[in-house]
């Protein structure tokens, strides 16, 4: 967690010094100067142009409105670790994933990988596992062909034989047989399809794998298998994961670092265990309390009521204030800056003022 948004330089150095002193968290001990991180986002913002529709859209001249799906997000992902991003549906997680994968270009800010601009990255160096494995496979292609797609255009495997062998290797790495490769997606179960998608992602020899809710569309019984597979692969291949989910137990199982996102902004970020054991931001606390497994830790249950506001009309001040149980007048006007609490960064006035408790 060495590069961080909205933070003055002093904070940054302070953090580094602190990290060196304590030497605890894997995320903060490795500094950006020493090892170029696998993924580095600096003040990344993404707008979608949203067409006004409705009865009068002719008269209003079809003016496009800007929807800020990702708002000044900064983080670094260190090699061989997993950074998870959690948040409710619609908070911008998939947009962030696509930005990091280079499928979208940020409206503002910079994304670098290994010190280079994302655009100069070899194709397939960053690869992705998608939420719905059915939509992620061409329904008319045998899955073997999908897996080997990465191997042809890049051209680093010349002979058909080599491509064939590599495809078989990738399939067996994810626990599929060569016979499975001859099937079409509709002939496979959800879990098998996701394995195929993982095999395809591995085929291009990526350094970074972006997993956008990889288990959300799967049966609960299969989820654990896929998560274990991802962890095994990380260990065996030294992969780095940007892991996106809204499922907190899953995130806890997977993450080294954790970023909690709300309405396009990261509201709390740090080593996952620090946040799970002592959540500070009211949104994080409410999220954790909404999961029965974690309720015991905080004793009380306050429901996270209602839906997040539309990112088309984000509330002024702290974006969380309409739902926050401890919002004050200050929260309604001023956007909270990030402050450091041990190894965790939090954007909240109450936490900054030292009145973190809810209720």
């Amino acid at each position: 967690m060495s590069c961080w948004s909205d933070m003055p330089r002093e904070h940054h150095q302070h953090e580094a010094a602190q990290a060196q002193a304590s030497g605890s968290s894997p995320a903060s001990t490795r500094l950006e100067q020493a090892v170029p991180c696998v993924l580095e986002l600096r003040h990344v913002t993404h707008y979608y142009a949203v067409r006004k529709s409705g009865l009068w859209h002719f008269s209003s001249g079809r003016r496009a409105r800007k929807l800020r799906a990702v708002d000044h997000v900064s983080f670094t992902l260190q090699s061989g670790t997993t950074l998870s991003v959690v948040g409710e549906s619609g908070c911008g997680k998939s947009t962030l994933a696509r930005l990091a994968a280079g499928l979208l270009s940020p409206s503002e800010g910079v994304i670098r990988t290994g010190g280079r601009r994302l655009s100069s990255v070899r194709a397939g160096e960053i690869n992705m596992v998608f939420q719905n494995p059915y939509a992620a496979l061409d329904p008319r292609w045998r899955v073997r062909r999908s897996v080997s797609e990465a191997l042809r255009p890049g051209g680093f495997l010349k002979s058909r034989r080599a491509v064939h062998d590599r495809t078989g290797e990738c399939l067996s790495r994810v626990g599929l047989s060569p016979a499975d490769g001859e099937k079409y997606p509709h002939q496979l179960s959800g879990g098998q399809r996701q394995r195929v998608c993982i095999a395809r992602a591995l085929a291009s020899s990526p350094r970074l794998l972006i997993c956008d809710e990889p288990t959300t569309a799967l049966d609960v019984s299969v989820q654990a298998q896929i998560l274990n597979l991802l962890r095994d692969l990380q260990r065996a291949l030294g992969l780095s994961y940007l892991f996106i989910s809204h499922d907190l137990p899953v995130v806890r199982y997977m993450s080294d670092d954790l970023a909690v996102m709300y309405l396009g902004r990261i509201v709390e970020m740090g080593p996952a265990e620090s946040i799970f054991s002592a959540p500070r931001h009211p949104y994080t606390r409410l999220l954790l309390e909404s999961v029965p497994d974690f309720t015991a830790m905080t004793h009380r249950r306050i429901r996270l009521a209602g839906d997040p506001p539309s990112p088309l009309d984000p509330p002024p001040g702290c974006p969380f204030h309409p739902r926050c149980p401890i919002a004050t007048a200050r929260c309604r006007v001023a956007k909270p800056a990030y402050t450091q609490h041990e190894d965790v960064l939090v954007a909240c006035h109450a936490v900054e003022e030292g009145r973190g408790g809810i209720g």
Partner: protein
Amino acid sequence: MTISKTDGPRQLAWLTRLKRSVLLSSFGASPAAMLSAALITLFLLNAIFAPFLVPQDPSDLRSLNLTDSLKPPAWMADGVWGYPLGTDGQGRDILSAVMYGARTSLGFGLAALALASLLGIPIGLIAGYTGGFLDSVLMRVADTQLTFPPILIALLLDGIGRAVLSRSMQQSLQPLWVVLAIGVSLWPQFARLVRASTLVERGKDYILAARLVGVSRSRILALHILPNIGSPILVFAAINLSFAIVAEATLSFLGVGLPPTEPSLGTLIMTGNDFLLSGEWWMSLFPGLALMSLVMAINCLADSFQDRLHISPG
């Protein structure tokens, strides 16, 4: 989704896919669709085998017998079974003429359709996939053309052909020009449909996955998107085939289509039309019936495919 038990040989998977395919599953749907399929098969067979089946070669002037001119259909008082549907003013067998004419109509319809797809499909793919400025330009052109009725475009192009080309050239090029006129008048519909389908398809995750590993735009369009939007395009092409056939018939009927030396059903209806008032109704009625059944069969079959696919006409 369950795991299929047919893990076996490739052929099996291929067969299951074929069984699942829209085209086959719509057979056995409605009796009307079955009848249409049978009719279309008949027309196709006729198109291939007409030269071997016709009682008389209508283009061979030596086989014509002027004494047999203007015979009514066989079941009428003056009719003879040698000319089941009667003859025209030169003693030409109407059945043979209709068989050849249906073949010509179908052939020109298909050729015009091929041209429209050849223009419209790539334009729609590129516009839909690229988006942005190019998309706007291409679609504005298509929309502008769509504000004119296609038959007017065809007439206009025909007029241009007549004005620009010398008379002999124009006459020898006339069949080609008919294909061009109808094909050009139809491309925007194809482009619009293909663009709409491409827009849906390009956002799907498997396209993103291909982009991530550097698959080129043309490969994505040709290997992923085109095959996956194939079914709606096929149905749409079928609907437009009937339009192309009618358009050709209309042009021919108006005298700006195929020349009498290469008569289509439309040409036959036009020439027969002159005799309609003098009582020789069979000369235009039978080509008309053939045209009607061909077009209705195509429409009916296309409709039943369309119902399966739930697509709306562009």
